[in-house]
């Protein structure tokens, strides 16, 4: 196997591995932070809506629905639903299938005043839901349910795949370039060594061996010099080899 191939086999996977590792970190970190942002958006909408309604709304008051529709106009939420304790709809800004009941509330959820479910795909939509508990003026329990679009996760996913492809391509280029550069420089030094060895082989013991800025190559060159000096003294200068003959 040639030096170039050996370096290529070593360095290309090294850089590709590093790029893969970095890409994985980039992918995981960015998707996690994007998910966090969407959770904050959904939970803020659900929790803020619930706090403004909490303890002060009448279930039959039309102002509530008007306000919920006004929130929709800001295009932050996709759907707002107020359900009672039996999961019956009180207000819903859209018609259609009712999202599932809120998962059971943990003490932590109740303390922070909201609960967010992971993004789920519904047809072509990726949706994230947030729930926040509240009471009406009479003390009856309700849940404010907000749906937001989580398509930024899909957009980010696509963008990250493009970036990962670019990073991997860059790593491949650097790995190949570096392998060729190093192999080329070593190859040059080694060729001089081979030439020096051939001179010794041909009986030209007085010829100087190759020198290099790399110690091992230089040492090998020195060793060839040493060997040729010793051979010159032991065998004599006129000793053509079988090969040269």
């Amino acid at each position, binding site marked *: *196997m040639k030096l170039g191939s050996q*370096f290529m086999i070593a360095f290309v996977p090294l850089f590709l591995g590093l790029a893969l590792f970095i890409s994985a970190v980039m992918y995981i970190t960015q998707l996690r932070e994007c998910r966090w*942002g969407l959770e904050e958006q959904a939970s*803020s909408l659900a929790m803020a809506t619930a706090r403004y309604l909490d303890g002060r709304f009448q279930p039959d008051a039309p102002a509530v629905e008007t306000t919920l529709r006004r929130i929709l106009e800001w295009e*932050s939420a996709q759907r707002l639903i107020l359900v009672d304790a039996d999961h019956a709809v009180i207000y819903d800004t859209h018609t259609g299938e009712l999202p599932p009941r809120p998962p059971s509330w943990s003490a932590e959820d109740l303390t922070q005043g909201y609960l967010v479910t992971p993004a789920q795909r519904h047809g072509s939509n990726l949706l994230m839901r947030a729930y926040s508990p509240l009471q009406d003026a009479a003390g009856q329990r309700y849940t404010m349910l907000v749906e937001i679009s989580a398509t930024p996760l899909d957009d980010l996913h696509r963008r990250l795949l493009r970036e990962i492809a670019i990073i991997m391509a860059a790593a491949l280029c650097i790995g190949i370039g570096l392998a060729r550069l190093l192999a080329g420089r070593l190859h040059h030094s080694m060729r001089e060594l*081979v030439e020096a060895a051939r001179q010794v082989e041909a009986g030209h013991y007085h010829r100087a061996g190759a020198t290099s*800025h790399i110690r091992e190559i230089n040492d*090998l060159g020195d*060793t060839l010099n040493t060997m040729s000096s010793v051979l010159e003294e032991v065998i004599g200068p006129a000793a053509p080899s079988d*090969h040269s003959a």
Partner: protein
Amino acid sequence: MAPANPIPLQRWILRSVMPALALFTLLAGLHIYRSVERVIIDGFDRKIYAIGTTTASFLDADELLDVLDLAPAVEEDYQRTHEKDRYEALAAPMRAILEQKDITYLYTFKLGGEKDIIYLIDASPEEDWCPIGYEEELPEQNLAGVQQSLTSGRAFISDVLDFDHWGLLKVASVPVRNSEGEIRAFAGVDVNIDLIRNKTRAALFQTFGIGGLALLLAGLLSLWIAQRVTQPVKTLKYGALRIAAGQYHETLDVRTPAELGALTDSLNHIRHTLQKRLPETSDQFIDPVQQEQIRTLLHNLEQSETPPPPDLPADERARFDQLRRQPPFNLLRPSECRLIAQAAQERTYPPGHRICSAGKLLKALFVVAEGHLEYADGQRLPPVHAPVDLLMDLPAEQDIRASATQGARVLLISKSHFFTILNECPELAIGFSASRLSTEAQP
């Protein structure tokens, strides 16, 4: 002419690869950091936008402006202001949101007054609270954004801005309408840059921590790669040394990398040619002068490679110096000699002390530092005794004892260490065989 300071192949490879790895990791790390920061800031934008728009949707601008009537009565007092039902009814849900959603400020204001804005309801705790009618100047960019918001009816989210009194903030200003749909007030949501920085810093540490780890792993891998490339060169070097020392029996078999294959072929051909010519030259070749010349050449070659190791402890230094004076250990690199000095044990034997009985196997190599060793019949032993006996597991021919007159101080190198050393430093084997040839050549 040889370069002044040739560098080891491993270091040469690492010097080329590590900067490339580091630069690649750094650039990728910076890209990740910037991307993550953008995603985090985008998340904060979503949050303050959601809270601001929800607040604006629930509030009526005229109702908000009405609280200005309370200003003279409450005289900028926190308690007295919050005791007013009209104020508290609007402030209570805002306060709950502020506490539960980990934002810095939530408030309402209107444009105008002697400065830029006039505060209406503020959900902040007492130490940060702005009383009704409190006026404030806004940074230019923020004021322009709010004015733009007034005409467009859209929410405005600022970049991170420096507020004189409040520090670095990211602000969302959302227009609040009255029942006629007129924009007469704004809901403001601020998040302190520290919250963003803390989150970004955590991402930064994770990114660069993992990047550093990846770099370390990549560095170790490239070290391993460098070692793999170095090994065949070393093998050839020792092969050439063996040929120079007159050992022609071992065929070299270095085929990888292919560039060294031609060199291997040349060396093997030289070895083969010399092997055939050996009967003609052997008498000349075992001449002690020639052997000394080989040793000197090898010694000079090895000496030129490495400087002596610094900071040796005194006792180790003494053993090191002793070994460096003693052929064939003088062929070794200082670093190799130091390792042997560390492994060696020093013993002093009184005159005539029996060290090994006849017929027993030797357990160590003896390197005499002072005095000498001798057989029971008085025959003096060489200063390095007895590498071949150790290698071949030969028992002592006679009792070995310290000099009957001087005693002996010796360095002991255990059998297992001796085998390891021979394996790691083949030039020692060359030296031992050269010494043996030289000894046998003497009449």
